[in-house]
Every structure is written in structure tokens, then in C-alpha cells.
């Protein structure tokens, strides 16, 4: 019995070793909302396959029942973060009940993946100045729209209209891409969270909501954070830059 226990222990340990992990986190993450992370698992084991692996990511577990020796797989994992802000995942717990279900063995495997969680979007309360026309802030020019010149390509986040999906490009990858088009009309806006109603966090959330909804509608949006001022823009990267500022914004 002792011999068996020792052997199963060795097998269990070996099952978790010789794994290389690569974690890719999406660039647009909101607290409490599942975001599609990609975990690439590559085994360096040349002798034995791996069995019943589980990778523990924030708010999600990815399971791989069988990984052939020398194989590499990509897993789509919906990860969930609870708080806004910047952070990084340095290690992932890899567990397996193999070979016998009496104990779950675990090791922590190195990955280096940094992430930025934006404040969760929150609509403005009813009665407050909602809608693009009355949104607080300064108006300038430029906006994103559904027509006009192609400005860039970005991954589909679920908010863009389907007609903007770049089908040809998406077919060549395993995710959807959307075209970012210049808008031909609209007034540029600059949002100042301090002028929004609610607590500090609520104001940030509302600012995120406004940025997202206004830019989806094709408006160019800028941001005023205390003394820092960002000029209005319409591209996705501009929007992520604004959201990033809000994510890292601390009360004075």
C-alpha cells in the first residue's frame, strides 16, 4: 500500500510538471463582467501525457482532461475581476486529482500577465441630464460613426453594431473584429466626472458609461480629470486610453 501511495504521488506530481503557460488577457475588462482570456498550455513532457488538469484563473477555472505529450492547446477562459484598477497575474494554480481522487495536488505555475480593469459602466440616474445633447462637458468636433472613412480595426466587444464586423478578417482568426469608421457628424464632448452625480466611484462608473455610449454613437469624447485634460477622439484606442485613466484615478 505504501508502495502504491508513493508511486501515485510521483505520478501525480509529474502530471503537473513540465507545463509552460502563456496567459493573454483582453484589453477591455470591467469588474464582475466575464472577459475572454486566452490561456496557452504547452507541455514539455516527452514521455507521458497530462490528465485532468485544472487552471485556476480569477473567477474561472479552465479544465483540460487530456493533454497529449508534446502538445500545445489554447483555452478561452471567461475571467472575472471584482475591482477596478491595474494589476497583474504572476502565478496560476494548476491542480489535478490525477491519479486517484483522494487528494487534489496543486502547483503554482509562472505566468506574467498584467491587466487593467475599468470602472463598471453605470447609467445616469433618471431625471439627470441623460442623452448626448445634455451630457455635461465641453463640445468639440470629431466623432466615430457607422459610415465615412475606415479609421482602424479592433476586436469586437459586444457593443459595436454587427454591420461593422469585419467578416473577412474575422474568418481568418478565431475572434471577431470590427471596423472603426469615422463619423461625419456629431459634436465633440469632454466629460468631467466631477460634474456627474453620485459618490466618487459612481461618478467614475457613469463617466465610463457616457464614454462608451457616446463613442458607440459616433461622438468624439475627451476627458477632464482634475487638472489633467485629454482631447476628444473617436478611435477605440482613444476610448481605452480614457477608460484607463478612469481605472487608475484615485480620489484627491
Amino acid at each position, binding site marked *: 500500500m*505504501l*508502495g*502504491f501511495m*508513493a*508511486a*501515485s504521488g*510521483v*505520478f501525480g506530481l509529474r502530471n503537473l510538471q513540465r507545463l509552460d503557460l502563456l496567459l493573454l488577457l483582453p484589453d477591455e475588462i470591467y469588474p464582475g463582467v466575464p472577459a475572454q482570456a486566452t490561456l*496557452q498550455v*504547452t507541455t*514539455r513532457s*516527452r*514521455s*507521458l*501525457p497530462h*490528465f*485532468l488538469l485544472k487552471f485556476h484563473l480569477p473567477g474561472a477555472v479552465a*479544465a483540460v*482532461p*487530456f493533454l497529449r505529450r*508534446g502538445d*500545445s492547446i489554447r483555452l478561452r477562459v471567461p475571467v472575472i475581476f471584482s475591482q477596478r484598477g491595474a494589476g497583474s497575474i504572476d502565478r496560476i494554480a494548476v491542480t489535478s*486529482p*490525477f*491519479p*486517484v*481522487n483522494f487528494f487534489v495536488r496543486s502547483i503554482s505555475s509562472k505566468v506574467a500577465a498584467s491587466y487593467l480593469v475599468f470602472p463598471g459602466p453605470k447609467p445616469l440616474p433618471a431625471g439627470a441630464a441623460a442623452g448626448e445633447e445634455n451630457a455635461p462637458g465641453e463640445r468639440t468636433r470629431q466623432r466615430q460613426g457607422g459610415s465615412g472613412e475606415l479609421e482602424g480595426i479592433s476586436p469586437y466587444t459586444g457593443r459595436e453594431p454587427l454591420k461593422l464586423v469585419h467578416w473577412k478578417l474575422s474568418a481568418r482568426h478565431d475572434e471577431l473584429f470590427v471596423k472603426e469608421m469615422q463619423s461625419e457628424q456629431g459634436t465633440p464632448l469632454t466629460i468631467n466626472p466631477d460634474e456627474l452625480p453620485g459618490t466618487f466611484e459612481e461618478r467614475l462608473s457613469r463617466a465610463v458609461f457616457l464614454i462608451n455610449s457616446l463613442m458607440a454613437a459616433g461622438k468624439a469624447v475627451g476627458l477632464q480629470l482634475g487638472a489633467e485634460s485629454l482631447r476628444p477622439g473617436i478611435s477605440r484606442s482613444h476610448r481605452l486610453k480614457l477608460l484607463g485613466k478612469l481605472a487608475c484615478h484615485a480620489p484627491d
Partner: protein
Amino acid sequence: MLRIKVLTELLLYSAALLGYLPLAPWLQVFPALAVPTAILFAFVAGRRGVILKELPALLVSVAGFAYFALQFNRHNVAEPVANILAILLAIRLAGEKSPRNFLQSITLALFCLAASTLFDLSPRFIVYLLLLLLIFTVSLVLLTFQSSAPDFKPAPKELRTIVSVALLQPLTALPLIILFFFILPRTQFPLWSSISLAGSELTGISDTVQPGDKNAVSSSRVTLFRAEMPLVAPDELYWRVTVLNAIKGSSWVRRQPPAEGKGTPPQGKELQQTIFLEPGRLAFLPALNLPQSIIGARGEPTADRLFPATMLQMRRRSYSVISQVGSDTLAAGRVDQKFYTILPENVPPRLLALSRAVAGRENSGEKRLQLLQTAFIELRLSYAASGLPTGADAMEKFLFTGKKGHCELFATAFATALRGAGVPARLVGGYYGGEYNELAGYYAVAEERAHLWVEAWLEGKGWVTIDPSRFAVNFEEARRVRSSSLTLRLRLFADTFNYYWNRAVITYDLESQFAAVSRMGAELRSFKTGRLPLRRVATGAGFLLLLAAAAYLATRKRATAEERLLKAFRRVLQKRYGLAIAASSGLHEAVQGINNDAVQEFVAVYTGAIYRDRRLTGEERERLKRLLGEIRGNGAGA
């Protein structure tokens, strides 16, 4: 999922059978039938989703438990436990098949197998145990898959890999098991059977002989002991176990023998035997007639040369005896004439008359013995193992009407006749003959060889051995054990395994472990003093090196032809184009930028096979090798 589930179920039934079969002979009827019925039920009804529900299962368990628990007492421990285990196993098998129940069932099967050792610790156990452990480990792994990844449906190839890795575990554990076997203490005997030996298991010679109390003799071929010794003449194979010297009514019993004077030592040659005795309730240790001394057993020999088994013999044990063979006389001076000439009740008047007549004709014991021998031979008695006379007048029937009997009747009749003629006589119980195993050099002696003979005390000589059964017209023929030569040989072959098992496993006890350790210590000490056993060290190191080399080659071989080709291809690309291909990237992408037909062709052929999950054909391998050569050639030319 279906595959894993079906496989685990089949493994479970096999495990249940492996646990049940060795225990079955000791079970009562209901538990004995319950397990196979449950397997059949689970197999047939379980497929249609019919299972034994929790409540009826609980009721049957409780009823079974209560019934057998009531039979439980200090003298009957093993049997109720075995029956309860069998019932629990049957219930678990017929019930729901959750991973938890699976595990419980296999564990119960293991317990059943373990319980069988309470009755019998035979080498078959190790075969059953190994098989059961193999099934156990494979099932554990499959159950882990079943409960951890219930949606996982492995391809046949994946399933094969899972099973082989699962099987690899016990194989890896084997060296450890062997190591632990030598360093950890163990139990060596069927523990409970010592407390509760069932009647059927009582082996050996009874301590009372009553002529006419049975109409057939035992024909059990269960081996009682094995004696490691050279081959000797068949008529020298008398194994002495007990001496019945007193009378109680019409029976012969054993009393403490009266003191005897010392006689002249016997003539004959000394022969040493090492005896491996099976567990039983023999009061004395069997030894080849005439035993002189014993090694490896405590206790002083009795006056009539028996070696008491100092305690209930609960385990297999071994000891050595030095015997005097080729002599039929046990030295003894004066003996208690009165004690050895008491007659039993119900002596046939005709036998008594014969004795009295002999006593009247001759004065010396030796002459009287000869006369009686002649008289018995003239009776033309025949030896039989069945259809024996029974009842109070059994001896009368045996001697004068039926003329058929077995050793007990021959011996008691002759001893009675001797005593009637005033010659001190006693019965000696033991075994006659044995099957010699030339392979391993030992005699195996079975229950059916039980025998009874007579010792008569003669003035100036001592106790002379006489086997009255030899007066039978058909003695040799009747005592021959009937077996075809093939079955006999097979039996001997199987018995050889038993014998080595006993030698290597059963009698390997704590003492032997200490001996091994102290031997090792002694070797180490002698090593320190500078007497370096160079040759042994070199041989050992050479052997280890060979083993390591074999292991290396065995693992190295696992790089397949495909892997070797790919490795060579990578090397060439690295050298020729400075291109390192990551293990994880696809070949097509990696060689996209290389403008070389041979490279592109290599990738096309290689991936054409590998991506379809098949091996390269011989032709393809040749082609790839040629292409590699071309790529190298190009490199040299450029």
C-alpha cells in the same frame, strides 16, 4: 463517458469475483450465492437502469449483519465476519453505481480477499491480490476521470493511454513494494483461524483410535507438510507424529509414557530433514521415523520420542530433524510391562484365544511376535479404504468374516494380539509415504497418507517397528495414490511454487529480517576494515551499469522515426537558414519564407502523415531522408 463507465463496471465485476472466489469455500449458502447473483443482477438489470434501492439494501444489510453477528463469539470470529463482508459486497454491487459506491465495492472485494487469509494463507492469495490491486488502481484512475471530468469522452486511443498510464503505476510501485517487503514487519499466519479452526480444517492425527468408528478413511489431498531431504526407499518413509499407549474402554489413547531404561543406541544411518509444516492442531511435530533430535523447535522430546508442538500451531513453521533410517528399533531398556499390556474392552474371543495360544507356545517376545505375524499373514486379510466394518464387533468382522480393513484395524488388532500374548505394544500414528518433488528435492505429505502402525518392546532390543498393514495381501497396491502421471506432475509443479512461497515468504519473519540487516551490517564493517570485496563490487556495479544502459536504451528507443526525422530537419534548417522552429509553432508557418522546394516538399509529406495522426510509411521515410540530404546539399552549394 460511456466507454469509461462500461470499463469501470467490468473492472468492478472482475474485482468482486477476485475478492469473492477465494472466500467462497468458507461462506454459508446465502452469502455464497448472494455475490454471484448480485453481479448477474447488476450486469443484466443494471443495464436497464434497475438497481437495488437504498431502503431494501439497508434492510438486507441489517438483517444479514444481525444474523451473522449473533453467531459471533470468541471461538467463531472469522466466519461471521467473512459472511457479513460477502453480503455487504453483494448489496453494494446490486445498488447504485456512483463513484463512491464503486470505491466501496472494490474495497469490500479487497476486504473479502483479505478475509480469505483468515482461513488460508496460500500463494494463490498473492496472485489474486496482485490482480485485484491492478484493477483497483486502474479503476481509481477511471473513477477520477468519471467524477472530475464527467463530460470528457476520450477517443479510443486516449482511453488506451489512460489505462496504460494507470497500469504503469502499480508496475512502478513494484520495486518499492519489494523493498518494503524486506524492510517492514508482517503477519505470517491466518490470525483468526488459530482461534476458530473449523472441524474440516483440523489436520493430522487424532489422539484417540477406536476401531470400527468409521467406514471410510480420509482421501484429502491437502498437503500437511513438506520435508526437504534426499530421496529414500519407500518403506523407510514412516513419519512419526504420535504414540497411543493406553486404553480407555475400547479405545486407544495417549497417556504420559512411563519412564524407560536406556538401551543400546540404534544402528542405521543419520538423515536430516527440514520440515515445513502447514498450520494445524498437531500436538507433536511430524518427523521421519526414528527421530533422534530436533533443531529449530523448543521442548524436550518425550520418552517415546515425540517432539511436542509447544503451542497451538497457528502458522507455517519449519524445523529440522535428524532421524535414524534403515533401523526399525528404538533403543529402550526396561519398560513398564504392566502399562503396555493392558487390553482394551471388546477383544474378539478368537483373537484372545490366538494370543493365549502363542503365549503358551513361546516364552520370548521375539518368538511370540514372529508367531503372531505368521498367524496374521495366514488370515489373508486385505487392505481397503472404504466399506470398512463398523460397530462393536468391527474387529471380529475384520479378522474373521469380512477380512477387509484399513491401517487402524490392522494396527489395533495386532497390538491387541501382542498385548494378549504378553508382549508390550503401542500404536504409532503418523503418515506413510509421500510424493517426492525432484524439482525442489522434498517430499509432500498429504492428509490421505495418515497411517497407524505398531511398536512392540522386545527384551534386549527395544521398541521394534512393525507395520501390520503390510500383512495384507494387497498392501502396496492399496496404498498407492492413484493419479495419472500428468496430473501428478502438474500437482507437483504447482506444489513446488507453494514450497518456495513458504520458504521465501511465510518463513521469512522478523528474525530473518534482523538476520539480513545484521548480515548487511557485518558486510559493511568488513568493508570498512579495508578488505574491499573488489570483485563483488565490480560485478555489482557492472550489473547496475548494464541495467541503467538497458533502461536508457529502452527510453531512448521511444524517440520514433518521425521524431528523429523532425529533429534532423530542424537541425538542417537551423544550420542552413538560421531558422529555429519553436516546438509549438506549425511547420507550414515556420517554413513559409524559405524558397526551397525540398524544404516545402519535406513539410508537405511530413505533415501529410502526422496531421492525419498516422505514422510515416517506409516509402515516405526514405523520401524524407532523401529530401534532407538535398537540403543539406543545397546548403553546401550555396
